[in-house]
């Protein structure tokens, strides 16, 4: 559905994107995470046809949008992080204006606008002026505008940025509903936990490079592999330490009362064999496993490694 391959972009001497690649399948919600200035907005602007890339390719539904920039406008619905609305226009007029931009007029436009406003729970606001809407309502209005012409992919840059908890929740609900009806989406945020609840796949970008990409479980497993094994030794601590010191895969050993932290570079099978060996030595263990990251520490760990 969407294939971004080796995307590059420089602003003078500053390298904004240094070979970003990722794939989004149809109906998937792809979470694009990274700290501020990592290259999320640049990638999205290129995908929306607002910026020219310096290299690489972006294919959406088989169309190379960098070579055919005009075609992108029918394929992508873009919602920027910051955007304004026109004063002196009502919600319905704002929607009908954009409908006319896509060649939809009259009754058909009115019907389509009402449908899309209903999708984002904004139908009751159709007679309000757009400049008096709250930020959350403006975000949803912008989303409804993107849905007017049924684009192949919705590209949303920080859709929950600056929203209060309630508006954030409402936005998440709307995105979930869109995912349920099979809309393909690329959603960016600098907060991983915000996306982890709704996205099927996540890509973490840092300093213009894609650091890791995959489902959240895959990423967690991949990163957890580098965490130490934590075990709680009930009896036989000295025997356990002596045994661990003999193992080649063991890099570090540290203890804290009954807890032992083992820097171990083996696979999951090796971890199981290590446990078997310890038990064979007569060591009594009540807890055993890799230390787990929460989402925020995972994000910090990944982005720090790159630095």
């Amino acid at each position, binding site marked *: 559905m969407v294939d971004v391959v080796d995307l590059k972009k420089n602003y003078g001497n500053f390298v904004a994107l240094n070979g970003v690649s990722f794939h989004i399948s149809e109906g998937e919600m792809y979470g694009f995470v990274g700290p501020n200035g990592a290259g999320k907005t640049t990638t999205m602007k290129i995908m929306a046809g607002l910026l*020219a890339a310096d*290299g690489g390719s972006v294919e959406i539904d088989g169309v190379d949008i960098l070579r*055919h920039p005009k075609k992108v406008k029918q394929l992508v619905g873009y919602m920027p992080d910051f955007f304004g609305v026109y*004063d002196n226009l009502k919600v319905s007029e704002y929607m009908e204006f954009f409908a*006319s*931009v896509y060649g939809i007029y009259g009754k058909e436009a009115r019907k389509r606008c009402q449908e899309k406003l209903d999708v984002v729970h904004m139908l009751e606001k159709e007679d309000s002026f757009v400049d008096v809407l709250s930020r959350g309502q403006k975000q949803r209005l912008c989303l409804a505008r993107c849905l007017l012409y049924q684009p192949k992919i919705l590209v949303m840059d920080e859709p929950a940025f600056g929203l209060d908890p309630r508006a954030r929740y409402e936005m998440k609900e709307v995105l979930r509903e869109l995912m349920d009806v099979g809309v393909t989406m690329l959603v960016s945020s600098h907060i991983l936990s915000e996306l982890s609840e709704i996205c099927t796949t996540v890509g973490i970008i840092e300093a213009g490079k894609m650091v890791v990409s995959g489902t959240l479980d895959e990423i967690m497993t991949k990163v957890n592999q580098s965490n130490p094994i934590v075990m709680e030794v009930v009896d036989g601590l000295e025997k356990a330490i002596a045994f661990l010191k003999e193992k080649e895969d063991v890099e570090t050993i540290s203890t804290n009362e009954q807890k032992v932290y083992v820097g171990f570079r083996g696979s999951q099978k090796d971890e199981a064999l290590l446990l078997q060996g310890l038990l064979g030595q007569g060591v009594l263990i009540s807890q055993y496993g890799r230390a787990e990251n929460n989402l925020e520490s995972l994000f910090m760990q990944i982005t720090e490694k790159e630095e």
Partner: protein
Amino acid sequence: MKNPVLSKELRATARRPRLVLGLFVFNTVLAFMVVAVFRLNFYISASEVSYSNVIRFFSWIEIAEFLLLAFIVPSLMAGSIAGEREKQTLDILLTTPMSTLTIIVGKLLASTGTILLFIFSSIPIMSVVFLIGGVGLFDIVLIVVYACVFAIYIGSIGIFFSSIFRRTIFATITTYGACVFTCVLPYVAYWIGYWIYLSGDDGLSDGFQVPGWLILLGLFSPVDSLVSMLSYQIAGNTWYRQICLLNINADSFWQSVNTGEWMCVSMLLQMLVAAVLILASAKILEPVKAGKKHWKIEEKNV
């Protein structure tokens, strides 16, 4: 041809209290000017009407209207694109299938429509001359055509700078500057040439002749178009003819040119310049220019 930007702009502009206030101020100032000019022209005796005074009176109204438009048009146009950038609505427009040319033309036509509203709203004031007679419907039509050409010409300059600059304030300042430059440049050049001639000569002006290129440059000046129009409308008035670049110290070839035809050529040329500026603005506004740079890099990689 439907232009979504034009419809949207007209609707939004019509709701702005600023428009009503602008119309009120425009017509009030114009009305005061009309009363003042009326008093100046007919102060001797109300029972005697000189028709040459009537047409001169009408020409003063035209000049007053031109001055007011020259003040309004740049401020209307300079913010058209830069304002969209500042409001952060431009990116959204640029991601739609609408071409940049449609956006530019929509903006320009909307502003021209606003100018027409100003012109039409002033017709009752201008119609004071109908009380006396001597001015025909054609003269009114000519003013409307001139105002449209002026709005599109200066408007296109405004749009051009609005496309270049990110801030409305810079676009407005440069548009006013360019407007003054375009309007008075041929006259300033003439007076500088004349002054140099006088300072180097025995002080007699009869030998000084305006070079042909300067007369041709006048074709791009809305002031020269206005003077040509007034000279054409008031055939008996020598004053406008004298200040028209065609006639001030020009040789017999230029003096034989009909000021009506000169005015038409001038307006056509100004429309041509406007078309070029509109196309250039549309090109500037295009976010991704047909992937030229990208292609080059791809070819290098191959």
